[in-house]
């Protein structure tokens, strides 16, 4: 008595996904008698070992993730960084690659400043960050937007195709954290357009032909925005 199960099906908590001895419970599922029961809202995956891929929810920190966060507090030996998700993260003074005056660490980063950092350890409820790696450090200027962390792979695209498209079309620098925080820096119009494009990707993350849609969106906006920009600049002069 095995129930056929369609691949990539949405399941809800408590739903009986499959029954019979052929299946084993994976992530976010449990076995009760002969039944495999879902414990979380998400998509099914796996043939024998059944697991659920979450599609929503807050960021769950993992070792090795590169995240973007905002300093929310300063302690005597480091910074508390808010990275979304259940807990704040700690960035120690020792994990900064340059010399910092211990008596005034706010000189390097104050409350509200933004970092790109890597998670190097996740313990029960403490997360430690480091800046000792390439491409990490303080992010100056620009803006931060927040999307659902489960949509980050779509925003980046295959080998960065989506994010590079947005970067090139809007002439902005973009840094995507795996926690769903995205830092964008460029001129005002570019930043705005990149933000809208990323929000569109996150909204339509499950639809097909997404790259074409974004190309169209960015292309159409260039034609629309440019005349206004010219007018505004003329007006200012």
């Amino acid at each position, binding site marked *: 008595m095995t129930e056929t199960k369609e691949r990539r099906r949405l399941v*809800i*908590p408590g*739903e009986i996904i499959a029954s019979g001895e052929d299946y084993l419970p994976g992530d976010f599922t449990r076995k*009760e008698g002969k039944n495999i029961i879902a414990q979380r809202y998400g998509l099914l995956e796996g043939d024998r070992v059944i697991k659920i891929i979450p599609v929503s*929810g807050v960021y769950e920190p993992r070792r090795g993730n590169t995240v973007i966060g905002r300093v929310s507090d300063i302690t005597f030996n480091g910074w508390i960084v808010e990275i979304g*998700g259940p*807990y704040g993260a700690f960035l120690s003074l020792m994990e900064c690659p340059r010399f910092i005056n211990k008596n005034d660490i706010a000189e390097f980063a104050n409350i509200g400043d933004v970092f790109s950092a890597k998670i190097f350890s996740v313990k029960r409820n403490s997360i430690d960050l480091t800046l000792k790696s390439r491409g990490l450090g303080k992010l100056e200027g620009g803006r931060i937007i927040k999307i659902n962390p489960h949509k980050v792979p779509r925003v980046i695209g295959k080998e960065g195709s989506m994010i590079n498209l947005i970067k090139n079309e809007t002439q902005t620098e973009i840094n995507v954290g795996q926690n769903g925080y995205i830092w964008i820096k460029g001129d005002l119009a570019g930043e705005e357009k990149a933000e809208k494009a990323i929000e569109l990707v996150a909204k339509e993350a499950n639809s097909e032909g997404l790259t074409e849609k974004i190309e169209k969106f960015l292309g159409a906006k260039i034609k629309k925005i440019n005349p206004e920009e010219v007018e505004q600049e003329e007006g200012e002069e």
Partner: protein
Amino acid sequence: MAYTKRLDGRKFDELRPIKAEIGIIPNADGSAMFAFGETVAIAAVYGPKPLHPQHMQDPEKGIIRCNYNMLPFSVTERAKPGPSRRSKEISMITENALSGVVDLKRFPGTVIDIEIMILQANASTRCAGINAAAMALAHAGVVMREMVSSVSIGKIDDKIATDITKDEEDYEEGEGATDIPFTITSNSEAITHLQLDGKIQTERLREAYDAALKASKKILDYQTRALKGEKIDENK
């Protein structure tokens, strides 16, 4: 005259037209709307997130903090905004009804905030609120053992009626009206919340439970369909 026909013409085991939808609040981690006829509730879930003040933190598990709120325009006579004795009670029973199915051990020291708002009220607001909150929790990707569904069963005169309205609640003839809200889990069929306002014979409570179980299965079906992306609206 005995209560032989329901005031709105429904069958005794029939629910009002249901409305259900998820993802209605973009800024929340999870959100849902659930309506029994004219009773409309929306729920938003935020978290798990760090809990402040720190003395409220539980080092063994996360907590659920619920806030039930009836909006001023939800009833005919303007409801005074802000917490009241009634809203505090309902917030508490909602927390209790839901915390049994949520895996709170996963993130100790955190909080899951649930905001329930009643947009329009015609009895059973707590049940609509719990249904919406359960859907919003699932939508927020919170790890849950199973779903819960809530329904209010009434004894109007000597008849057991499912999903009662305000008019039925105010019925005074014969034995009068009794309101019994139930919250029942989807798989184990356990009761996580039960209240009783009025009087009922011991043997008839069993009957009310059977009606609640039957209705909760129907509600679970609506919740499941809504969570799978359907927009349910049975109002014509």
